[in-house]
């Protein structure tokens, strides 16, 4: 069961990756854009510009096949890039939903026409993507999607509402999960359709999160017309496409998060070293416990990447990645507040920002409870598990 291929194969780096790492380091030297501006619009613009520059240097889509504008390298190359970008001011790609999730899903399941039209704009960040999955009545219970799309000639007409949609305000395109067959229920009768966010009938309303930042939105669809050929795979395959897309939400996606957390952790330790508190054995023990979580997450991500590389990813396995990410994220910033003390913990700053923000990690992308259910049923094979 759980250990049947023990010890788990892991993504390995060889001389090719070492050479790539050198190339990236050379390119990065002197080009670091630094911390992007605070103001939201300027921040997004700076991040788009950074991905464009990376693309121009041939560094975006390293693992994408060459026919889709990629470099045809392996996932190890992508991992090296993510590791090296970590030291820059902008460690995450602004269009990572496109590059890491929607793009690979299109390669797997979409028509050549859709691939040709939509893949190139993902790489250079000229077209940003979002995903429209969750709805007011379809949170953990995603199959309860009620947004409908009815056929009208060559078009689909979409009505309904999505919620918690990240980046809907800045994205050009959305991969939207809709019900195309109202006779069918639950997982059947769903379709995944590409929607241009500038289409008339779409209203995006920011839904400020706990920090009052406009990261996500409510999106309303009122008679929105979309060409029928924008359906990814076949009508009715929506659930399959959604699951494929979510499977790409692990791997490189989590690697980026892990690397960002490692960076924040280093900042914390540096601060504790500067203040002299790092000499306290109790502080060192706490540092050791947080380092443990981050290191375990790192090994887990490299295992997942290797399984993705070799096509041996087991259903439910990446729930482990999500669960580790949630607990590490929350432990790190809880430790930061404890170790940096009341002056830091009682004021608004980057640490308390991340402390509050960390509550979302165990909710988005499938709550901790949902992940436990997946592990019990899929990984442990407990068919009757609640």
């Amino acid at each position, binding site marked *: 069961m759980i250990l049947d291929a023990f010890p788990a194969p892991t993504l390995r780096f060889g001389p090719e990756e070492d050479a790539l790492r050198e190339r990236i380091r050379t390119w990065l030297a002197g080009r670091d854009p630094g911390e992007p501006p605070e103001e939201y619009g300027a921040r997004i613009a700076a991040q788009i510009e950074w991905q464009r520059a990376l693309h121009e240097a041939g560094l975006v889509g390293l693992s994408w096949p060459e026919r889709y504008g990629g470099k045809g390298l392996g996932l190890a190359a992508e991992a090296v890039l993510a590791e090296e970008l970590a030291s820059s001011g902008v460690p995450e790609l602004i269009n990572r939903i496109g590059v890491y999730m929607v793009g690979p899903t299109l390669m797997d399941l979409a028509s050549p026409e859709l691939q040709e039209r939509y893949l190139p704009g993902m790489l250079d960040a000229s077209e940003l993507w979002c995903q429209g999955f969750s709805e007011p009545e379809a949170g953990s219970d995603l199959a309860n999607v009620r947004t409908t799309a009815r056929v009208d000639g060559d078009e689909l007409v979409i009505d309904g509402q999505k919620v918690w949609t990240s980046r809907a305000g800045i994205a050009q395109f959305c991969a939207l999960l809709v019900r195309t067959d109202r006779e069918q229920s639950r997982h059947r009768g769903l379709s995944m359709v590409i929607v241009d966010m500038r289409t008339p009938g779409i209203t995006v309303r920011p839904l400020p999160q706990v920090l009052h930042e406009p990261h996500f939105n409510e999106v309303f669809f009122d008679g929105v017309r979309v060409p029928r050929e924008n359906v990814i795979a076949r009508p009715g395959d929506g659930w399959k496409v959604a699951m494929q897309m979510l499977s790409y939400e692990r791997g490189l996606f989590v690697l980026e998060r892990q690397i960002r957390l490692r960076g924040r952790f280093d900042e914390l330790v540096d601060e504790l070293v500067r203040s002299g508190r790092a000499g306290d054995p109790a502080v060192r023990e706490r540092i*050791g416990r947080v380092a443990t979580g981050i290191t375990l997450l790192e090994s887990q991500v490299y295992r997942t990447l290797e399984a993705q590389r070799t096509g041996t990813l087991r259903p439910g396995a990446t729930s482990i990645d999500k669960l580790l990410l949630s607990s590490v994220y929350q432990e790190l910033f809880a430790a930061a507040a404890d170790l940096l003390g009341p002056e830091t913990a009682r004021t608004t700053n980057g640490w308390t920002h991340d402390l509050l923000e960390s509550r979302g990690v165990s909710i988005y992308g499938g709550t901790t409870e949902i992940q436990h259910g997946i592990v019990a049923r899929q*990984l442990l094979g*407990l068919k*009757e598990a609640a």
Partner: protein
Amino acid sequence: MTDVATRAEADEIARSLDASLTRILSIEALLESAEHDRPLPDALQDAVVGLGWSGVAVAEDDGGLGLGPTARAMLGEVAGRRLLPAAVRGEALLLAPALAALGAADLLEGVLAGELRGGGAIAPAFAADGDGASQLVALAPGARLAALVGTGGGMVVDLEADPVSVEPAAGLEAGQGLARVTVTGPIAPERCFDDAVSDRLRDGWELWVFAELAGTAARTLELSAEYAQQREQFGRKIVTFQAVSHRLAEMAVALGALDSAIGRLAAGLEDGRPDPLLAAVLRHVAPAKARTVCESAIQVHGGIGFTWELGLHLHLRRALDLQYALGGDGPTAQAIGERYVAARAEVAA
């Protein structure tokens, strides 16, 4: 680098050893040995030793199996799952490779043949000639040799001929032959080795122990998952209670994460890209996770889990013993912190 063929080969060896140990080490025999704190009967000892464990960490040229880190981890997992006697671990991972490093061919041959028994332990630092070293060691019945591996070197002592005292101790893992071995005088230089050898032995022993911890805990999860699907209370199987199934899921997550970390440590050793931080983390987290899984297994089984006869406590005892052999929960966490702080201070300088 291990190619697919060798991994498949190692997998076959592991499966065959697992089947053999399952046959030889019945839960009844293990409980009998623990209850009376005496070794397994000679016939069972011979059967276990006859499987060739003492060759797992010795090169083929020296008469061993010449296994790489990944293959050794696979066998360590089996050892933990089936509760291989602790003395066999010491013989295989410390004593035999120490004798190989010392070039003690005759003694090595005896150990590989299972004729010369002993044990081995990781010990705190001690003097270059070994005088004063003292450590708890699980010794096989009739043990002649013990490897004591310190932080800056180590030695193989002859328990009959060398100046050592052997005091039997009541082990938490009863029946494993635990004894305190104390060196009371200088040990001959040809039986002592330097830090290069002791570091290598320690790395190999630790990887095995991490795998053993994963294996022993994995066994209790398997038993728990089976039990939860059979046991009924309130007119339904207890696995249908979310409190139970989520606990089982947490056990699986702990083991899955451990599996990934051990796999990465083994791959690093194999590729000549060792990861000292990951090793330090595993010293802390492998026993911590294994212990939690064993404890959860007892909880999932309820009152039956707490009985002697079910034997879950044997796995918990092993996890606890190894946790403290590796340094204990707090000190190993602190050691990671020290390492991390030192690394950041170096970056700053």
